[in-house]
């Protein structure tokens, strides 16, 4: 049976989403009011 490590998966997916969304939003807003 595979190990129960879904929490690690969720942590990694959430961390990646936060970083990518934060940078995309920052880039979008900063470049808008250039």
């Amino acid at each position, binding site marked *: 049976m*595979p*190990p129960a490590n*879904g929490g*690690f*998966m969720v942590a*990694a*997916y959430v961390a990646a989403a936060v970083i*990518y969304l934060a940078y995309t939003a920052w880039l979008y807003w900063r470049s808008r009011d*250039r």
Partner: protein
Amino acid sequence: MTATQSAERALKRGGILMAVGLFLVAGVYVRALLFTPEEATQGLAQKIFYIHAPSAWVALYLAYGVVGIFSVLYLFLKDPRLDLLASSSAEVGTVFTTVVLITGPIWGKTIWGAWWTWDARLTATLFLYFVYLAYLVLRSAVDEPGRRARYSAVLGILGALLVPFIHMTVYLFRTLHPMPVVLQPGRPRVPGPMLVTILYAFFAFTVFYFGLLARRYAWARLKAERAQREADGGDASR
């Protein structure tokens, strides 16, 4: 059409491509989490791979590759647009490397039992990250555009030279980091549904990178043109 109008259009196009890329990356989440089977020995943590590996592909090979190539071209041609493209790619690459360096240890903790190990690939990737952080700090510390471009081109090339070394680490050293499972000679050793997810993820993150790069570069061009106009005394017709 003036240079500013052209850059403004590029900014809009970059925004659209960025949104498309984000949408495709959201598709990776859906596909990986809901429609890809759980791996038998590693469990759900194996799915971190679908974020980690494509991010590493974009950061190391695409983003820092672009930095290296356009930095070399800048040193030969001295066209400021080449410097702006290289620096935009360095910034975007640093964001992707941040994700690589966060998702990797999370996977390592559950599979290896340790958040970090000083093995060749991990250590070299961390040093590469520091080189490009230094690159970005250097750019903000030098005001004169010509000198800033020249210094950062040299540092950008030196950083990019680390990439082939990082690629070879899993072959040259006894490292804990897994060998390539898709980009390897012969057939990939991955079952069909997982392979589809991996290939789609590589595609989605690549589009996302080009979207971010296009937007960042267009913004950098607009800022450079505005600075030039101010230096020329407000002549907006150029």
